[in-house]
């Protein structure tokens, strides 16, 4: 009886806090919040296994109602193509196909490494996508990708 001593229940939390803070800092620094996009698309699913490259991407959004948006990932390039006021916008609405062609040519001149991807909505009429592909062919972009979600089954 006399030998039994009650172990202290107070645990030193400091190392735990240290580790937690470290993790917190890591996640805070690595998180990139997805900027709100004006073009909302639901991507189709496929079994394609190529990953979307992280930089040097030029994206053409084709929304459900058939309107076109163009966006590039680098902010410097956005300033060059769309002007200073559109620096923070991930995509800018393109009124017609001719403008789209002009903008894409300008973007490709500014950054020849740019890769073109099309983000089309599931319900986009195929005709619009066909038109976009024709524009791409016109401006001699013969290699491009369609963005899809990975099918999980």
């Amino acid at each position: 009886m006399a030998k039994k001593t009650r172990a202290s229940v107070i645990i030193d939390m400091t190392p735990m806090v240290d580790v937690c803070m470290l993790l917190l800092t890591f996640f805070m620094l690595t998180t990139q919040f997805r900027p709100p996009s004006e073009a909302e698309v639901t991507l189709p699913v496929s079994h394609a296994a190529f990953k979307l490259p992280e930089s040097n991407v030029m994206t053409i959004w084709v929304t459900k109602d058939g309107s076109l948006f163009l966006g590039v990932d680098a902010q410097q390039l956005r300033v060059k193509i769309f002007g200073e006021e559109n620096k923070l916008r991930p995509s800018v609405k393109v009124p017609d196909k001719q403008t789209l062609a002009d903008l894409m040519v300008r973007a490709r001149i500014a950054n020849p490494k740019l890769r073109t991807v099309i983000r089309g909505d599931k319900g986009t009429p195929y005709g619009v996508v066909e038109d976009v592909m024709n524009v791409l062919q016109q401006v001699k972009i013969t290699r491009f990708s369609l963005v899809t979600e990975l099918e999980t089954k």
Partner: protein
Amino acid sequence: MAGADVAQPKKERKGSTKKAKKLHRVSARVDLTPMVDVVMLLITFFMLTTVFTTPQTMEINLPPDETPVEVGESSLLTLRVMADGSIYWNMGIERPQRITFSDLRPLLMERIASNPKLITLVKVQRDGTFNQMVDVMDELGIARITRFSMAPFKDVDLKFIQKGLGG
């Protein structure tokens, strides 16, 4: 126990005796549990909001402008996708046959196995959806048909299908 003993007894003695008597040493041990709670909450938040899944892409190569390519009739498979989702296929100038989407994959696999030089032409009606195009292209990809091209769906194609079904 780290950081618990901060006060230095020597300094206390140097101070006036009046003060020393009144001074109660406050315990330096702070309960860190709420802090850990908050930090854990934040970690969970950041972990859940971090997007690890980058979308997949399907690569397409367009032929550099209108360069006509001669294709042998026997190795040309044409797939026509109608706006209502029905799919018709034919070899060369044979009559088009209707096929369901689930039968498409075995058909493509069988065709590519019998003729590795097979060239596939996909025609999607303009009223069709982007999803249909991606689905068909995906099937082609699964069947390892890498050589295919997209062509516009013309009125001729519609007549061709109607004629093929009627006659």
